[in-house]
Every structure is written in C-alpha cells, then in structure tokens.
C-alpha cells in the first residue's frame, strides 16, 4: 500500500459520533413524533442557511479527520516497509500546495514581497529592500501585472461558481418538488454564496497567500482551515463527556429527591464555585506532566497532540456538565409531580423504567437544545484556553493558538493583522451559524414557542 491508515483517537470518536447521529436521524425518520420537531426546525429559512454553512465546516473537519502515513522509498538493506513519521490527513493532501510552500517569514495577503526588509544582492550590489516571495506571485514576470492576474483568477472563480449556480438551481427545483415545505432555495442560495467566495479564493491560492503568511512563513489560510477540525472536536466530543454526566445526575437528582438530590446539588454547587479556567488549567498542566513522562506511549508527535486534545475535551466536559444537570433537575422535579408518573407509581412500575420510559424521553428536547447551544460556547472556550496557554498542544494550529500568536503581531510595527483577521472571520462565521441554528432548534422543540398563546 502506498499509505498506512493512521486513525487518531479523536478521528475514531468523531466518526463514531457521526455514525450515532446518522442512526438518530434514521430513528427519527421512522417515529413521527420525534421527526416532527426536526421537520419544524428545517422549515425555517435561518436553519437552512446555517445548516449549509455548518455543513461546509463539517465537510472540511471530516476531511481533516482521515489520517494516514505515506510510504517512503525503501532504503537498501533495511527490512519492513518504512512509513513517513509525518501524519497527514486527506485535507492536507488536498492542500499540499498551501502546506509545502513556505515563505521565510511574514507576508501580507496577496503580496508578492516579504513583509520584512532583508539584505540581498541585485546585480552584485548589496541592497536592503523587501525581497520577492519564494512562491507568492513568483510566476509573475512583472509585479505590475499583479492586479490583472488577481482579477483574472477571481473572474475564473466566479465563472465556475456561475456554472455551479445552474446545477444548484436544477437540484433546488427538483428537491422543491419532492419536499416543498423545506426552504431549498435559501439553502441553495447560501451554497452558491459559499462557492462564490471559496472558488476565487481557491484559484488565488494556487499563486498567492490569500490570507498572508505567519512568522515562520506558513500560509494563514491553511492554518485557519486546519483549525476547523479542532473546533469541531472540542464542540462535539466534549458533549460526549458532558451529556451522560449531566443527564444521569440531573435526572436522578430531580426524580429521587432526598439525600441523592442533596449530594448531587452539593457536588455541582462546589464545582461551579471554583473558577472554571483555574480548574481546567490545573488539570491540563497535570496531564502535560503525565504526557511528558511517558513519551514512549506515542509513536508520532501528532498522536501526542491528539491525546492532549482528547483529554482537554474530557476536562472541559467534566467541568461544564453542571448547567445541563441543573436544567434537567428542575425539569425532572416538575415531571415527577405529573400525573402520568404518579399513575406509573400506582401500577408499581420500577424506578429505572420510569426514568427511562417516562422522564428521559420527556427531557430529550432540553438535551438537544442544550447540546446545540453548548457547541458555540465550547468553540469559544477553546480559543480562550489556548490563548492563555492551557488549551491544545502548542504545535497544533487552532483558532486559539492563532489568536495567541497574534498577541505579539498586533504589538509589532508595522502591524500584522491578517492572522487575527483570518481566525476571527472563520470562527465568527462558525459560531454565528451554530448560534442561529441553535435558536432555530429551540424554536422547533420548545412547546411554548410552538403553541403560542391561544386562550379558550
């Protein structure tokens, strides 16, 4: 094989989660009362737009979650097949042109010259000037052609996007005939908008650094795209830790009451009164020591960074289940007073069965709303934690590490703004889409919004 699949822990979990969601969708489609709220969600225009935007992020994230190692040329006399120590993902492969074309240091977006003066020789004379970039606009004979070249590439991108528009239009027409209640046109228009932005960027990226380069000359666009996976993992895998804890403890506290309730309440009140960042910092630093002591556990640097990411998810989950638990405790308290629960008691139904058959299905909507709403909060939390240095591995690029690096760049003269801007734009769109989608989900699931106030 020319490559060796090399799944990281987070890859496996992310794909498993994807599978679980697919199962849930299949299950919902068979149960009308479970499917109905989702159908309501996707009838909203906002939800359709956000789903498309979010879908693009997810596609990039998942392409970045298929890791492998490339086979190296067999050295003479050695045994076995050697594989490169570098772990690559499908996304890396697709973005090879961005990944491998490193400049010496900072360069501005779409620049042809470096952002720092250097000493070099022209015609044997030493000159101190901004040197031409190694790759950015290197093919241009004359720098004066740059605007025309850029315009041509944008035009080409838009032309391809226009071609895609026809295809999208046809697809929308067909889909609208099958499911007229879903706002396909809004989704299609969004997809077209995304393509109209992405395709020119793509064509530009073959020749230029669209978002410039960072201190070590790495393409900022590449870093931003790589950061998406980290955000998705933090936003989703954390809920895997958070959900079981929050659901089990919250529902149990509300249903059993008495000393169980007291114990769980004391637990989360105590946990809540410790500053979150402090707790996370302590846990992360402890974990760092463990990882450093056991270097033999990891065959590659990626594996080490990945474990750190996974543990960060777990720590975030362990410290943030309290909100959900408190919500569910209140709801379970209310539900356990309802008459159908009392009727179940009158039939002598066992507690575990009441919890699973009567309470859990009736708090499911709260769990879903909380999960979707937590996502954006967790993405932002990662940025903050990485900024203060207790987040992901420093070698990993995430929005947080990009912003952290920008701390120095903003203080520099002349200012380097593009790293921060790129991280900001990508994260802002992701969080905004997630938030708006969460609103649509809440509107779809919340019975009060649905009924409105209609007096007798």
């Amino acid at each position: 094989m020319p490559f060796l699949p090399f799944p990281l822990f987070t890859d496996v979990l992310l794909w498993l989660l994807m599978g679980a969601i697919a199962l849930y969708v299949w299950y919902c489609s068979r149960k009308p009362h479970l499917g109905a709220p989702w159908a309501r969600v996707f009838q909203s225009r906002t939800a359709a737009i956000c789903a498309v935007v979010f879908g693009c992020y997810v596609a990039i994230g998942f392409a970045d979650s298929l890791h492998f190692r490339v086979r190296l040329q067999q050295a003479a006399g050695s045994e076995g097949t050697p594989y490169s120590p570098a772990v690559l993902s499908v996304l890396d492969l697709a973005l090879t042109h961005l990944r491998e074309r490193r400049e010496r240091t900072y360069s501005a977006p779409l620049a042809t010259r470096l952002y720092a003066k250097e000493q070099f020789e022209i015609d044997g004379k030493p000159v101190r000037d901004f040197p031409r970039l190694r790759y950015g606009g290197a093919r241009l004979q004359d720098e004066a052609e740059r605007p025309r070249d850029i315009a041509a590439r944008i035009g080409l991108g838009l032309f391809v996007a226009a071609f895609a528009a026809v295809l999208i239009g046809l697809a929308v027409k067909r889909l609208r005939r099958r499911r007229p209640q879903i706002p396909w046109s809004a989704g299609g228009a969004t997809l077209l908008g995304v393509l109209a932005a992405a395709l020119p960027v793509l064509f530009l990226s073959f020749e230029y650094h669209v978002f410039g380069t960072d201190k070590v000359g790495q393409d900022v666009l590449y870093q931003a795209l790589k950061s998406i996976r980290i955000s998705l993992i933090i936003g989703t895998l954390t809920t895997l830790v958070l959900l079981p804890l929050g659901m089990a403890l919250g529902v149990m506290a509300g249903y059993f009451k008495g000393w169980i309730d007291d114990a769980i309440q004391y637990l989360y009140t105590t946990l809540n009164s410790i500053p979150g960042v402090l707790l996370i910092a302590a846990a992360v630093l402890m974990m760092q020591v463990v990882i450093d002591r056991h270097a033999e556990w990891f065959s590659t640097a990626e594996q080490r960074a990945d474990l750190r990411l996974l543990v960060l998810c777990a720590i975030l989950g362990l410290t943030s289940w309290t909100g959900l638990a408190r919500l569910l405790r209140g709801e379970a308290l209310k539900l356990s007073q309802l008459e159908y629960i009392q009727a179940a008691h009158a039939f002598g139904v066992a507690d575990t069965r009441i919890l699973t058959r009567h309470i859990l299905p009736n708090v499911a909507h709260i769990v879903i709303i909380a999960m979707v709403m937590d996502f954006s909060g967790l993405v932002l939390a990662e940025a903050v934690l990485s900024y203060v240095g207790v987040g992901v591995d420093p070698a990993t690029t995430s929005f947080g590490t990009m912003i952290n690096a920008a701390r120095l760049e903003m203080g520099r003269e002349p200012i380097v703004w593009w790293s921060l801007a790129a991280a900001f734009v990508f994260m802002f769109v992701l969080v905004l889409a997630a938030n708006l989608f969460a609103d649509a989900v809440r509107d779809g699931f919340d019975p009060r919004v649905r009924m409105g106030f209609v007096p007798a």
Partner: protein
Amino acid sequence: MKPALRIHALNTVLDTPRGMVRAVDDVGFELRPGECFALVGESGSGKSMTALSIMRLLPEAGRIVGGEVDLDGLDLLGLPEAAMRSVRGRRIAMIFQEPSTALNPVLSVGRQIVEVMERHTELSREEAKRKALELLRSVGIPDAERRFEQYPFELSGGLKQRAMIAGALAVDPEVLIADEPTTALDVTIQAQILELLARLLRERGMALLLITHDLGIVARMAHRVAVMYAGEIVEIAEREAFMRAPQHPYSQKLFAALPSPRRRAGELAVIQGQVPPLTQEFRACRFAERCDQAFDRCRIEAPAMLEARPGQLARCHLREAGPAAPRAQSLGSHESIKTASGEGNVLLRIRDLQVHFPIRRGLLKRTVGYVRAVDGVSFELRAGRTLALVGESGSGKTTTGKAILQLIAPTAGSVRFADTELTTLSRAEIRPRRSAMQIIFQDPYGSLNPRMRVLEILLEGMRSLGIGRDEAERTARITRLLGEVGLPAEALGRYPHEFSGGQRQRIAIARALAVEPKLIVCDEPTSALDVSVQAQILNLLRALQQRLGIAYLFITHNIAVVEYLAHEVAVMYQGKIVEHGDVDRVLGAPAHPYTRELLAAVPTID
C-alpha cells in the same frame, strides 16, 4: 336605554399552521349600563377571544378582520394604539381567571392599584392612595391598610381576585369584562366574589360582560345571556326566558347534560361528536352534525337569528315553526341509584388516617412543624358503591386518596384493603396488590405520557403487574377495553395529543381498568372537562360500576356530580371529615354548619 358598549358583526381570526381559524364569527350584542351580560359556551367556543377582541389584546397570531366595537359613540377598532391604551383600564377594565398570575408578584397590591390611577387620572400620590384604600374596603378586603402594603403572595386566592377587581375599578370604568372570574376559586369564595360583583354593578351602574361556562353562575348573576358555539352566538335572550325555555338545541343540551339528583335514575344527555374545526367556512348549521333535531335543511343552509319569542333570538331553523317548549322541570323522581351485584362486603376500611408533611427550615433542614393535610380520617367503602369525598381545595381530599393507594406514605392510621393492612407493607409487598386499586386523575393532559402511544400506555400497567399471560392476551384484552370505554380500535397506534380532553380521560379510565381493579380513586376526573363531555364520562363511570361492580372513591368539589353519582358522601374540611352519610341525607338535611355553608354557596339553575 342607551347601550354602554355595542359590538356589531365582530370577526376575529387566528393564523395557525393548520390554517385560518375563525375564532369569532359575526358576533354582535350590546351591554347596557347596570346590566350583567353573560357569554356562555364551552371551551373553544370563542368567548375569551371575543373579550380580547373588544380590548384589542389579541395574541400575536390573532387579528380582527371586521366589525365594530362602539363604546358610547367611539369606534374602538378604528382607534390608534396610543388612544386605545387610554381606553383600556380607564373606560373598559378586565379581570382574568387566574388571580395569581394576573398580579405582578414584585409590586405590592396597593402600588398596582395606585399605578392604574396615576396612569389615567391627575390624582396626587396621596389622593390615589386614599382612594385605593377606599376601593380595597369596598371590595370587601378586611384590614385594607395592611393589605395595601402586602405583596400578592401574601394574599389568598379570593383576596387576590378582590384586589384584581379593586384595580379594575380604580378609575370607574364604564364596562367591566370578567373572563371566568371565579373558575379558579373555591365555591364559597366564588359565592362571595359573585355577590361582590352584583353589588358593584348595582352601586356603580357599569356594564358587566361575564364570561363563564357555568350555567349556575348565569342563573345567579346574568340579566341577559348569549350562548356561543363554534365562534358564533347561537342564542341570545333575557335570563328568565333562557332558563325557562332555551330555544337552541345546543342550549337545551347544555341544560340536559348537567348532572342533578333528578336525573339520577337515567343517563345524562350527551352531545355526540366534537365542535367542528373552525378552519373551514361554514355553509350549513354548525351544530347540525351533533344535533338530535337536525333535518335536511340544517345541512344545506345556515340558519339566521330568528326571534322565537319577543327578545329571545336563536339561530335555528326549527324556530320558524314557533318557540320551543319550556325545559322539563321534573324528569324523574328521587330514585336511588341502581347498584351492581356483588355489593356488600367492606372493601376498604380507613381508620384515623393521618398524613402530615414536615415543614423544614434552616441549613440542616430541621423539622419545625407539620402541615396536617389529613388529620384523622375514618370511613368504610363497600364493594360496588361510590363514596364521594367533597371539600374545598386544601381540605386534604386528594392527599387522602393518594395515601390510600400508598402513593404518599401515611403518617399514622390504618388502611385496610380487602382485609390486608397496607400501611405496614413494604413497597415490594404492595406491588402485587396494586392491580386491585387504581386512580384516575383530574388533568387529562397531564395524566398521559405524551411520548407513548396509547397501546404502550395501556400495556404498561399490565406488564408491570403481570396481568395476562402473554402479549397476545394483553392486546386482546386492551382491544376489548377500548370498546368498553367507547374508543375506536385504531386509537391504539396514536399518541395522546391526537385526542380531545374527553377521549384522553377515556384512555385514562381504560388504563386503570386494564389491571382489573376493585377500587378506583377518581380524583376530580371531570373538573377539567366541558359540561357535555363531563356527562359522557359520568355516564361511562356509572355504566362500568353497574357492569363490573367497581367501588369508586370519588374526590370532587362539584356537588351536582355528587348528587348524580354517589351513594354516600363525606365532607372534608381542614383535613377532617366533618359530615358523613347517605347522599340524600347529607345533601338534603346537612347537619354540620360547614356543609350548610358549602351547599348554600353552590349556584344552582333551578
């Protein structure tokens, strides 16, 4: 006399996902000063929407599409919103059903009344306060100075409703709209509030629009009556004429569906079917599908308002042939209820039952006292008989019922069920005995899990208690049960939200019956239902008792239901039974002063 408020051809629609609902359709009437005009109808008939349309306080989905609301020459529907705001509260005031949610919990009662005056008049703070105190006294709130400073949570339900009325009267409105003002209150408090409203009407000469579903309240309060059905007025008349001879078949049915001792021998009249969905445009009579007297013309042509007798209009083709006969005043004799075979053995024997809830305070949750919810209750119930437990809210009726089923652990006393003492048994030991005693709840919306299909709901108890050998036998039994409670077999695959309140209550009854109980505790099973649906459920309960010999412990505050259904009655007051005996004896010749007060407070139609 010049009307205070004239409503003409009012049309209000609600935009819902299912389509446009014509909630109020061509409604017209007038309110005269000093007069109480009652708007009667079952839930969903559009009475509240009419009131909200007059106030222009419709929910977001609602809009008024036509008509006139004329307040002494001022067309309210044409006013800009700012001008309307000075009409609301100033010239038309409104009081709501639930006093506990209609008052702002963070403002003192007095502050809320003064606020109304400050908004609408030029009174100074001092004058406003003096006037508010005067108002609080005039609505019969004792110790007005203290109450003025208190917050809503410190007041009882009756006092809160009085404070609401005081607030509504703060600036002498010409029209007062009362939307079910006493439905949330106990019957003795209800009597006081109705008395207060009648007095204020006499003294102040305002017009009162009273919205209610209770014909007893109509008989007591109203000068004129309009009956609403499916968004339109079907009958409008003077009170005496209406009570003597209702002209529309729907009004006649409403009277016939009321339980009363005279109907004890037979079944109550029921109105078949349901209110038609208001999303359609009606071309025929709206009541035709449910009417016994319908004929061909009713299904083709919508009837106009006909004057059956001077001053009494009804929307029915039949009235072309002349007025309907007066209501039959005495249907049957005071027969006692037929009882089923197998009656006789004492099934349930309660001795000195006590349920005390500890009041805990402080960090360590020390018990500082007890709420004596049930304080020494004793009675016996024989198989196949019905004992009605009557009392006001907080008297401990429901707690007694739940303590008997061991859903709440009794503090002391004995509950012997079929010669087994239940209070000393462990949870596991009670479990096999649970099938013999079941419970039906008040709220048909809260008593069924919305996430389970009817089949699963009915199977749950049977599975848990091991009734039936296998699934096939259970399913067969369930299918038979559905027929018994009058539901179609395809109901099994559906979810509770697809059923109406009455049908849900039937499902709840089927669920209880599924485990073959000998005793069913019925906790206000009909108080959330409309009169016509209540009649269906009462008929069903009685038929089941006669066929299966089930004993009922019937918890209720509705005396009419007691008279109709019960063999014996026990009156509860503050956790104790103050009077207990045969239903005819207790209701006919009450011995205890509380029973007498309770019975006197019940509004009756005769």
